[in-house]
């Protein structure tokens, strides 16, 4: 039975989306999508359990009953089971967030479509994570991307459609380059199944076409992952989208694309080829360092809280890339652990910003003045999330920094280790800007009357609960790391060692 879990994990949200569209009222659609998200979470949890039962940690499932190289195969090992749990967990929590589609500029009578789009984005991401077929990744990549373009376009304010449009253009270029890369691989080996690719690639590895295929795949996935030079779309997309959407996307879509990059480099091509013969780390290491510093520096000078968090996401992607380019078991564990940790931190922070925008009407830094007294719990969430971003011990940020620096030291890169810690100091600057605004400055009297909004009260429980579930888990997983580090190290060993 546990093999069927794999396909149910994707099919349940996929089939739920059209059903959700038919539901008449907004609350019905919202409850239905939350229920579906929790079902996918349960399925992901049981997949993780089933994976523990198998002896070599891989579950394969042939679709349509056709053996792998001919039919499509779903293949789950520790790496993607870990991602499944993360994505469905984040979805289950973020969907519970209060305003839901109210946060978006949706024509009334169309709210059920908002939840359909969210379910489709979730199904797309789960589809990418579960499948073992290269072309299938492209199909579900497009499903999740199209859903997220339309969700971003729904942001209140005039600039959301433009942000969604530039994300669409760059995202589609990325997707098409990915398609071209898969086509080159198919042309040289004759197969699309990832496991089959691994066995057939070694004897064509020296051809220029395969090097071009790797370059295309890295650039294509790099655009969707917002690696440093290709990240221009991310700040606009996350800052103008509705807060629920940016919380969901910031915590899941870049993470799944990171998993795809790991799968490409470590499973299909093999770390030896990518890092020893091609020396891709000469390019990727400096890029990730620039991302760490550039992202944080840009975040310091932002006037809008969501834009600040978006730029800090660019910096955090730099940390994950650094873990990847260190190409050792600890490095990969560090990258995978930071995937989980960053999702919790960024998801929680964006939801906190959602609470603020719901009350204050905007996320500009000027409006944060003196919020500490009127919205104590939301500002406390911002502070704890900020501490996690800095990497204070007993938070998840510390765990990822711990493993990243270990990985750097293992390869005697003392300078890289020092740079990692220095860049997290930059995080102190922009987190403390927010803290000072919240707690140490008084709201200027003029601003309160002008907007004529009702007086700012603490966010309702419906918004605070999911925020504090995510923010609380940044502490819990900071102290008990057996789930995150345990699974990540098993996944890293599997990816570095024998491969699936």
């Amino acid at each position: 039975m546990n093999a069927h879990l794999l396909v149910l994990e994707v099919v349940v949200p996929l089939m739920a989306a059209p059903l959700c569209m038919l539901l008449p009222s907004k609350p019905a659609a919202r409850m239905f999508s939350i229920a579906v998200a929790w079902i996918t979470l349960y399925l992901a949890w049981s997949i993780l359990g089933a994976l523990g039962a198998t002896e070599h940690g891989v579950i394969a499932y042939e679709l349509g009953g056709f053996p792998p190289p001919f039919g499509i195969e779903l293949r789950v090992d520790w790496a993607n089971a870990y991602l499944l749990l993360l994505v469905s967990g984040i979805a289950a929590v973020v969907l519970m967030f209060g305003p839901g589609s109210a946060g978006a500029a949706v024509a009334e009578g169309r709210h059920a479509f908002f939840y359909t789009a969210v379910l489709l984005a979730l199904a797309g991401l789960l589809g990418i994570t579960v499948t073992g077929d290269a072309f299938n990744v492209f199909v579900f990549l497009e499903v999740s991307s199209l859903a997220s373009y339309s969700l971003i376009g729904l942001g209140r304010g005039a600039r959301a459609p433009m942000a969604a449009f530039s994300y669409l253009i760059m995202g589609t270029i990325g997707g098409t380059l990915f398609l071209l890369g898969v086509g080159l691989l198919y042309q040289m080996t004759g197969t699309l199944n990832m496991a089959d690719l691994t066995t057939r690639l070694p004897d064509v590895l020296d051809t220029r076409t395969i090097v071009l295929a790797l370059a295309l795949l890295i650039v294509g996935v790099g655009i969707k992952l917002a690696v440093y030079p290709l990240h221009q779309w991310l700040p606009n997309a996350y800052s103008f989208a509705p807060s629920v959407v940016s919380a969901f996307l910031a915590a899941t879509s870049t993470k799944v694309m990171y998993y795809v990059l790991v799968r490409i480099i470590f499973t299909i091509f093999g770390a030896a080829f990518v890092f020893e013969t091609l020396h891709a780390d000469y390019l990727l290491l400096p890029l990730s360092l620039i991302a760490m510093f550039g992202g944080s520096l840009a975040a310091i000078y932002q006037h809008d809280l969501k834009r600040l968090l978006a730029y800090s996401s660019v910096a955090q992607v730099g940390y994950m890339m650094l873990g990847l380019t260190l190409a050792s078991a600890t490095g990969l564990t560090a990258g995978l652990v930071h995937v989980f940790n960053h999702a919790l931190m960024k998801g929680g922070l964006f939801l906190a910003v959602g609470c603020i925008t719901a009350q204050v009407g905007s996320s500009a830094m000027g409006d944060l003045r003196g919020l500490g007294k009127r919205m104590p719990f939301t500002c406390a969430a911002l502070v704890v999330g900020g501490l996690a971003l800095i990497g204070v011990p007993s938070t998840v940020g510390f765990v990822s920094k711990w493993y990243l620096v270990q990985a750097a030291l293992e390869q005697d890169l003392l300078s890289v280790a020092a740079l990692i810690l220095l860049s997290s100091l930059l995080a102190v600057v922009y987190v403390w800007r927010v803290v000072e605004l919240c707690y140490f400055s008084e709201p200027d009297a003029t601003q309160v009357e002008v907007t004529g909004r009702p007086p700012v009260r603490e966010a309702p429980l419906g918004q605070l609960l999911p925020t504090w579930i995510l923010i609380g888990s940044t502490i819990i997983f900071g102290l008990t790391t057996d789930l995150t580090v345990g699974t990540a190290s098993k996944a890293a060993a599997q990816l570095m060692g024998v491969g699936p």
Partner: protein
Amino acid sequence: MDFPVEVILFLFLLATALTVALLEDLFAAAMMTGIFSLLSACLFTLMDAVDVAFTEAAVGAGVSTVLFLSTLALTAQREKQHPFTWFPLLLVILTGACLVTGTLDMPHYGDPKAPIHVHVAPEYIAGAERDFGIPNIVTNVLASYRGYDTFGETVVIFTASVGVMLLLGHRRRRPGPAHRPTITPEGAARMRDFAIVRVVSMGVIPLIVLFGLYVQFHGDFGPGGGFQAGVIIGAAVILYGLIFGLSTLQRVVPSPLLETGIALGVLLYGGTGVASLLMGGHYLDYAVFDSDDPKHGRHLGILLVEGGVGIAVTCAMILIFYSFAGRALAREAFDEGGGGQ
């Protein structure tokens, strides 16, 4: 070797692409994109990809041109000319050079010993005869071996129409008779008043729908299938809408029906898979439908799946048209009513 006809068509294709790049008049550019798709459809037929040619012609020349023209009607007609900058050209030439160096080790065009013809393809060709008995191998592979991909494809078109309806969605109210919509701006005759056009199209629409259904059910034997049929039937309904205006069309084909239709299409496809799951096979394994004769079971499965795709695509095309056309009316009502009712 004989002079390949493809060379000429490729030259035409390059010429069209260049004109699209250089043209300022966006309507002409939209037309050139249509011609670009038609030319590529011809090239696909020459490369024995008949199904792809059919779809490219139906989608490239048909639907995307309609979409481009309706967007241009709502936005600008001409593009502002901009000074020539070097950076994009340099970047493009650089990427092009890298791609060309990558092609040097590829198997030659049409080389029968290339890895892709040796590894997986023979099984598909032999399997079509042995397990399925379906002449059109492409439809067979599309629906069975890579049925999960096609399910993804249906969900992609479903996502696109949900996205368009979200972005351009108009209120789901019954279109009242009082509203007198005119698609073309004032002063110009409306399409409905062109007697000849109305009579001719009234004659042609049923034929198109008939042809669409033929393509739907003939998909196993010749080029065709759910997707192409959906586009063709959608085009017929859009033609009716163009002639008689959106509100009359919405009375004939109300949008709630279409929304249930598109949901039904996707659910039909997914449901077939779940049915095969419940009957003991793997997901989307049609052989379990008819235990004693797997070939018949697979036939039934492919038919159901193609039906699902057909319904979903038809409704998607019409819904996207509603959203774009609805937006034009919303704009017009907005202008006429001085700020909208």
